[in-house]
């Protein structure tokens, strides 16, 4: 069972306490944006077999949104960090590099 540690309340929450919120670090586009940008924002998602960054909500806990770094192929968790982050903090990136040298994801905007 997937267990993520909430970076706010510190609880090691198991999957039934959490709600998955999809890809992290999305750049949002609204009215007035181009068709391509709107399509990318609404429908195109990273779908890597490996390192992935996601939004999660500690729904049946403190209720806060946070971000997690995870491997979609092994279900290994590299760490969690606050939702306000523009990019994963260095300790998370280092933890990933230690286990998955040469990993890549899309650009963090």
């Amino acid at each position, binding site marked *: 069972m997937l267990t993520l540690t909430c970076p706010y309340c510190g609880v090691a929450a198991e999957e039934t306490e959490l709600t998955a919120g999809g890809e992290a670090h999305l750049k949002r586009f609204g009215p007035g944006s181009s068709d391509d940008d709107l*399509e990318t924002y609404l*429908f195109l*998602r990273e*779908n890597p*077999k490996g390192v992935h960054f996601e939004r999660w909500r500690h729904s049946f806990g403190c209720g806060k949104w946070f971000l997690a770094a*995870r491997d979609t192929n092994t279900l290994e968790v590299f760490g969690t960090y606050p939702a306000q982050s523009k990019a994963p903090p260095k300790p998370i990136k280092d933890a990933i590099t230690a286990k998955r040298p040469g990993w890549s994801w899309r650009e963090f905007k």
Partner: protein
Amino acid sequence: MKRYSVFAVAREALRQHQGWERAWPNAEPKARYDAIIVGAGGHGLATAYYLGRNHGIRNVAIIEKGWLGGGNTGRNTTIIRSNYLQDPSAAIYEKARSLFETLSQELNYNVMFSPRGVMMLAQTQHEIRGYKRTAMANSLQGVTTEFISPARVKELVPIINLEGPRYPVLGALWQPRGGTARHDAVAWGYARACAAMGMDIIQKCEVTGVSQKDGKVTGISTTRGDIACDKLGIVVAGHSGVMANHAGFRLPIESVALQALVSEPIKPCMDVVVMANTVHGYMSQSDKGEMVIGGGTDGFNNYTQRGSFHHIEETVRALNETFPMISRLKMLRQWGGIVDMTGDRSPIISKTPLGNCFVNCGWGTGGFKAIPGSGWAMAELMAKGEPGPLALEFNMWRFKEGKFIDESVAAGVAH
């Protein structure tokens, strides 16, 4: 290829079954093919079969990373139906269902199509309205369905409990010619027919790259060497994103795990397929007597071919109310498959930004039932380079244009 028949069985019975030949040979890759299909699951094999049968393209290889039919084709709950709301969906699923009717005879391979009837329970007022609407849409589309009363539901499924406190049965959408088929046999039957046309089925061969020149595909790199081709069809379900990455474009797809399970075998007790979308569960009885139960998907990206335990618990708990007799059944096996989900829960059969490269994916949680129709439409697209009427609206650019085929809204759940 020797034909299977009652005479062949009699002949072989007289000589200790020594004369049966392999259903398909294990092929070595050639240097070049007219067309390569990546993915030897049901959809890939059906695409190859109809390329040969309908369009005369027989210099074809079907490349498979694992073993034939070992992905979602071997991991589904074998339900076949075509009671969809949107016209493009009803067209392709009904094409598939109607091809299933004569598939055993056509392939000379018993796919055990059993049109036992599929019932989708209405357990909320919203579902009653939704299914009545679908039944009317189906009658315009030429798909035979009807909305039936709880009394008729009980007549068809005596083991059902109509009066559940949380999820009472208020009626059902009934498709009498829906049913099930033997999932492995569908893959094996198509594979045998493809091999008989001279196509190469290459297993344990993973694609590691797609080569291109001037915006057109020229071949693929694999773990067993480079292979050149004029046309490439990507039919790999959960790994579509990985293949699209090789080919240099993105797909509006996320891969998640979907689970199913079977109980211990019991005597025949239910001779139709029952789906309960409100509780995310569906159930049928296999020929071996096992109750085959399908559940919901996990909410997060996953490539592990196993799902979260609590989903099974939720599915079985909910079905317990509707089918009290399953409460003391032991569950024997559970498995997961990686399904490719699109934003509108409808498939993609499409040209791609790369010339002569075509993609057939996004079947999500309901791909098995579509295998013959999907192969038919994909073969037409690959042979002609342009989509035919069945594939036209399933192009990958519909998300940009807002032309969704919105079955997620129509069904209320993934389907």
